[in-house]
C-alpha cells in the first residue's frame, strides 16, 4: 500500500459567489507523480493553488474543507511553514530579475529571513542546482543575473529554488507549456528523477506529458474530480465517459 502524504477532504473553493471546486476528495501518494488533467476552466490550477494556500490571497476568494499534510491541516499551520513544505513552480519561469543565480536559488531563505553560513549556502546552491540538472551549465556564472538564461534553464533555476527549501511536495503548474520541446523533455526526465526525493503534483493540459511521466492521474471537469487512478489504468480503461472523451480529444 502506498504512503499517503497529502489528503484532500471535501474541498470547496469559491471566487466570490462563484464556486470553482466542488467537494474534492483526493489522496496524493508519497514519492509519486500525480498529474491533474482537465480542460481549461476545470479548476485544476485553483486546486493546486489551494494546496500551498495561494488561492486565498485573491480578493473575495474562499476555501472550505480540509487539506492534510502528513495528517496536519495546512489551514491550521503557519503559511510560511506550509509554503516551505509545499513548493511551487509556475507556468512562466519567474526567477527574480534583481538577484544573481546564486541568490535566486537561496531566495527562499533570503525571503523568510533564515540565516545561513557561507558553507551552508554554497552547499545548498550546489545541491539544488545539481538536482535540477543546471549545475554544469551555470557553475562558472553563479553571480550573474538569472534572467540571462534560456527559458528552459530559467525554469530549471526555479525548480532549484523550490528544491532548495527541501519541500515534501512540489507543485508544478504547467511547467513546460512555455518551453521548447527539448527543454520539455529534459524537465520530464528531471521529474522522474526527482520523485525519488520529493512528491510531485503536476498540473498539465498536455495529455501526452501526463502519460509519459505520471504514476497517478486525476481528471477534473467543471470543478469536480471525475476520476482518479493509476495513469496506466486511466489511459487504457477509464471508467467515466467524460474522462474518455477528454483523452481522445473530444472535449477540452
Amino acid at each position, binding site marked *: 500500500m502506498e504512503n499517503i502524504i497529502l489528503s484532500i477532504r471535501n474541498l470547496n473553493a469559491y471566487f466570490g459567489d462563484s464556486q470553482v471546486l466542488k467537494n474534492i476528495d483526493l489522496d496524493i501518494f508519497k514519492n509519486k507523480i500525480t498529474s491533474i488533467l482537465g480542460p481549461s476552466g476545470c479548476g485544476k490550477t485553483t486546486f493546486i493553488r489551494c494546496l*500551498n494556500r*495561494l488561492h486565498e*490571497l485573491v*480578493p473575495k476568494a474562499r476555501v472550505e474543507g480540509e487539506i492534510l499534510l502528513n495528517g496536519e491541516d495546512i489551514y491550521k499551520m503557519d*503559511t*510560511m*511553514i*506550509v*509554503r*516551505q513544505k509545499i*513548493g*511551487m513552480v*509556475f507556468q*512562466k519561469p*519567474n526567477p*527574480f*530579475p*534583481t*538577484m544573481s543565480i546564486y541568490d535566486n536559488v537561496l*531566495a*527562499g531563505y*533570503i*525571503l*523568510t*529571513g533564515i540565516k545561513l553560513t557561507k558553507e551552508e549556502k554554497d552547499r545548498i546552491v550546489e545541491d539544488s542546482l545539481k538536482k535540477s540538472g543546471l549545475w554544469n551549465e551555470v557553475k562558472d556564472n553563479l553571480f550573474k543575473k538569472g534572467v540571462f538564461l534560456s527559458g528552459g534553464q530559467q525554469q530549471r533555476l*526555479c525548480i532549484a*529554488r*523550490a528544491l532548495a*527549501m527541501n519541500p515534501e511536495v512540489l507543485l508544478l503548474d504547467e511547467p513546460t507549456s512555455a518551453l521548447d520541446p527539448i527543454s520539455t523533455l529534459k524537465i520530464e526526465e528531471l521529474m522522474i528523477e526527482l520523485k525519488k526525493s520529493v512528491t510531485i503534483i503536476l498540473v498539465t493540459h498536455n495529455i501526452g506529458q501526463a502519460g509519459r511521466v505520471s504514476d497517478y492521474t486525476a481528471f477534473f471537469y467543471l470543478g469536480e474530480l471525475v476520476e482518479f487512478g493509476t495513469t496506466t489504468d486511466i489511459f487504457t480503461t477509464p471508467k467515466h465517459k467524460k474522462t474518455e472523451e477528454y483523452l481522445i480529444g473530444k472535449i477540452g
Partner: protein
Amino acid sequence: MEKEIRKRVLKDRVFKKIITLFTYLSIIPLFLIIYFVMARGLKYINLRFLTQLPKPMGEAGGGIFNAIVGSFIIVGIASLIAIPIGVISGIFLSEFKESKISEFIKILVDTLQGIPSIVIGIIAYLWIVKPLKHFSALSGSIALSIMMLPIVIKSTEEILNMVPNEIKEGAIALGAPYYRVVLKVLLPYGFVGILTGILLGISRILGETAPLLFTAFGNQFLNLNIFKPMSTIPYLIFVYATSPYKDWHNQAFAASVVLIIIVLSINLIGRFFEKRWKT
C-alpha cells in the same frame, strides 16, 4: 489611380514635416532660455562667487555660498520627509488597489498636485511659521515636501504596478511574509524607477520659490540652524532680480545658471543610473 497615390505620398511627407517643425518649435524656448541666462550670467561665475557669503546691500561683490548650502539643506530635509512617506504610500496604493482608502488617497494626491505652490507656502506659514513665531528653514522644507510628495507617490505606484504578478507570486510561494516581498523583491525591482521619481521630485522643488517666500524666507548670513530663516538659490534670485542694484542683477543671472546646472546634473545622474541598472 496613380494620381491618388501621389496625393497620399505628398500628404504623408507634409505631415511628417509639420510634426518635425512643431517639435523643433517646442524645444526652441528651452534653448533660448538657457542661452539667454548663460549669456548674461556665465561670466560672473567663479570660485569666489560660489564660496563667499553675500556682501551687505549696496556693496559689490560677494557670493551665494549661503544660498547654495541653504538649498541643499532645505531640499535635503524635504526629501527626508517626502521620500519615506511617498514611497510607502506608493507601495500601499499599488498593493491595495481596490480598497476605498486607496481611492481616497488617490483623489487627495491629485488635488495636492493641483494646488498652487504659493498657496502651499501660505498654509505652511499659517501652520508652522505663525505658531513658532518666526521664519524657519524647517517650515520651508515642510512646504517643499508637500509639493514633492505627489510626484514620489505617483511614480512609486506606477513603477510597482509594472512588477509582473508572477514575480510577486513566486516570492509568496516561497513563504515570504508580506514585508519581505516588498523589501526584497518589489522595491529592488522598482528601484530605478522609484529613484528616478525621487530625482524628478528633487529637481522640481529645487527651483520652487513661492512657498519659500513665507517660510524659509532668506538669510544674508550662512545659517545651519533649521529653526531659523535660511537662504536658498531661487529665493536669492528673486530678491536680487527685483532689487535696484545692477551688481545684484548680474548675480541673479549667475545664480540662475548655477541652479540650471544643478537641476540638469541631477537629471543626468538619474538617466545614468537608469541605463546602468537596465543592463
